[in-house]
C-alpha cells in the first residue's frame, strides 16, 4: 500500500469563486461524493485572513468539516509571494517570516505537509527547516510545469536538500511537468477565441519542439504573426507553454525517496478511463515503486479554460480516482 487518494479543493476553483459553496459546504460535498479521504487546502484560497488573521471560528469550521466527513488533512498549500511589494521584494529573512505563520498554522490544523514553491531559495530553505521541524510539518517543494525533476531550478533545490539533509524537506511532484498532449479543451477554447486550424497546428508543432518554453512560444507567436491570427488567443496560448510541461515521466524516479505528497494534476479522463493529455498508466507505474506511503490529491485544472456549467469538477475528480485506482491496483491503495 503506497498511495492514499484524495482531493485538493483547488479542483473546485470555479465553484468556489462563484460563491456556490461555503468552506464547510465544499468539504461536505467532497465527503458526500466519496472523493477523499485526503483533502488538501490552499491557504490563500480557502481561508479568509490566511495565515495570521484567520478567525478561530473559521479554523474550527474547517476542522469540524474534515472530521465529520471522515477525511484526512494531507497538505496545506503555501505561497512564497516574494513580490508582494512591487518596489521592494522580500529578502531571505522577510521570506522566512512570511513562511513561518503558514507552516505553523499547518501544524496547528494537523496538515502533515506544507506545499512550497520554487521561490524559496536555498538560504530560505535552510532557515525555515527548523520551523517545519518544530511544527512537525514536512515542506514539499512543488515540481510543476515547466520545471521537471532534473531541470536547473529543481536541481538547485535538490542540492540544497542534500546539504541540509532533513526529513522535513521533500518534494510534491505535479504531473503537469510530464504531459504528452495539449488538452483538447484548451485547444477548443483557443478555437472559440478565434485561432484558426493553421494556428492550432502551429501551436502543437511549437509545443512538441525541443527547447525552452518561452523560445517555443516565441516561434509560435512569430508564425501566428505571419498567419494573421488574432491577438487574444495568441496571448492566451502563452499558458500552454508554462502550464503543460514535456519532461520525461521516468525521471520522477530520481526524487521518489523524497516525495512527501503528490499533485495528481489532470485535465481530461475519457470514458475508457484514459487521460489523453497525461500518460497516467506510465506515471502510476513509476510511483508504485515508492518505498513509503504518500497522499495524492486529484488536481483538476480544466477550470483554466472551462466554465463551471461546462464541467462538474466533482465528477472529474471521481473519474480521476477511478482511473488511478485502475492503474495502481487495489494492493497499492491506502484506505482509512
Amino acid at each position, binding site marked *: 500500500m503506497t498511495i492514499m487518494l484524495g482531493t485538493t479543493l*483547488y479542483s473546485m476553483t470555479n465553484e468556489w*469563486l462563484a460563491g456556490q459553496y461555503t468552506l464547510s459546504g465544499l468539504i461536505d460535498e467532497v465527503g458526500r461524493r466519496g472523493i477523499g479521504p485526503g483533502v488538501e487546502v490552499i491557504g*490563500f484560497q480557502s481561508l479568509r485572513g490566511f495565515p495570521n488573521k484567520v478567525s478561530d471560528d473559521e479554523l474550527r469550521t474547517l476542522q469540524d468539516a474534515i472530521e465529520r466527513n471522515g477525511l484526512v488533512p494531507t497538505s496545506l498549500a503555501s*505561497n512564497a509571494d516574494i*513580490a508582494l*511589494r*512591487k518596489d521592494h521584494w522580500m529578502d531571505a529573512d522577510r521570506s522566512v517570516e512570511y513562511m513561518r505563520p503558514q507552516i505553523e498554522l499547518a501544524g496547528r490544523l494537523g496538515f502533515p505537509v506544507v506545499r512550497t514553491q520554487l521561490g524559496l531559495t536555498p538560504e530560505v530553505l535552510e532557515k525555515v527547516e527548523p520551523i517545519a521541524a518544530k511544527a512537525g510539518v514536512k515542506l514539499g517543494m512543488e515540481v510543476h510545469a515547466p520545471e521537471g525533476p532534473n531541470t536547473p531550478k529543481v536541481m538547485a533545490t535538490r542540492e540544497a536538500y542534500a546539504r541540509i539533509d532533513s526529513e522535513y524537506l521533500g518534494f510534491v511532484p505535479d504531473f503537469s511537468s510530464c504531459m504528452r498532449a495539449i488538452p483538447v479543451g484548451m485547444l477548443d477554447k483557443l478555437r472559440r477565441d478565434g485561432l484558426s486550424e493553421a494556428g492550432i497546428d502551429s501551436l502543437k508543432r511549437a509545443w512538441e519542439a525541443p527547447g525552452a518554453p518561452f523560445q517555443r512560444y516565441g516561434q509560435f507567436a512569430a508564425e501566428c504573426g505571419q498567419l494573421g491570427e488574432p491577438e487574444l488567443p495568441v496571448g492566451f496560448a502563452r499558458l500552454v507553454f508554462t502550464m503543460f510541461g514535456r519532461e520525461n515521466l521516468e525521471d520522477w524516479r530520481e526524487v521518489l525517496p523524497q516525495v512527501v505528497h503528490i499533485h495528481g494534476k489532470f485535465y481530461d479522463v475519457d470514458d475508457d478511463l484514459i487521460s489523453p493529455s497525461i500518460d497516467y498508466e506510465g506515471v502510476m507505474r513509476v510511483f508504485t515503486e515508492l518505498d513509503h506511503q504518500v497522499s495524492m490529491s486529484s488536481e483538476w485544472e480544466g477550470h483554466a479554460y472551462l466554465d463551471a456549467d461546462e464541467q462538474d469538477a466533482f465528477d472529474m475528480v471521481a473519474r480521476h480516482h477511478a482511473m488511478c485506482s485502475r492503474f495502481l491496483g487495489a494492493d497499492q491503495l491506502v484506505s482509512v
Partner: protein
Amino acid sequence: MTLEAQVLGDNAVRAADGGYEVDLHLAWYRSLPLSCLEGIDVTINQETASRESLKVAVGDRRLGLDELPALDDEWWFVQDALTVYVPSSSAVARGEQADVDVILATRVPYIIIGPDAALVQRTHVVKKVVVQ
C-alpha cells in the same frame, strides 16, 4: 465561470452620486493583497475614467490606486468583490443599459518571470449590463 468571466457580474454596476459603483472580482484562484493591484481601467458608455479619479473601498476608506502599493497586509479575499467608485458626468439611471469595458491588472507575487519582474496578469472584460 472561468476566471475572466468572474471579474464583472451581471449586477456589478450600480448608480451612485456623481457616477457609478462597480463591483470587481479577482481573475485569479486565490486572494491577493491590495499592493498587488496594479491597475484598473474602466470605460462605461465610451467614457473612460482617469486613473486618478478612481477610488476603491478599503474598509471605511476610499483610496486612490496610487495609495495601494503600500497595502501589503490588506487582503482582497478571492470570494469578495472590490467596490470601485467611477465618477461620470453622464451616468445613466438605474434600470438602463450600459456598455462596460474593464481591464484589471494584478501582479501575481510568486510567479517570477525575470530578474526583477513578476507576472502581471491583465484581464479584459467587455460586457453590457443593466445599471442597478
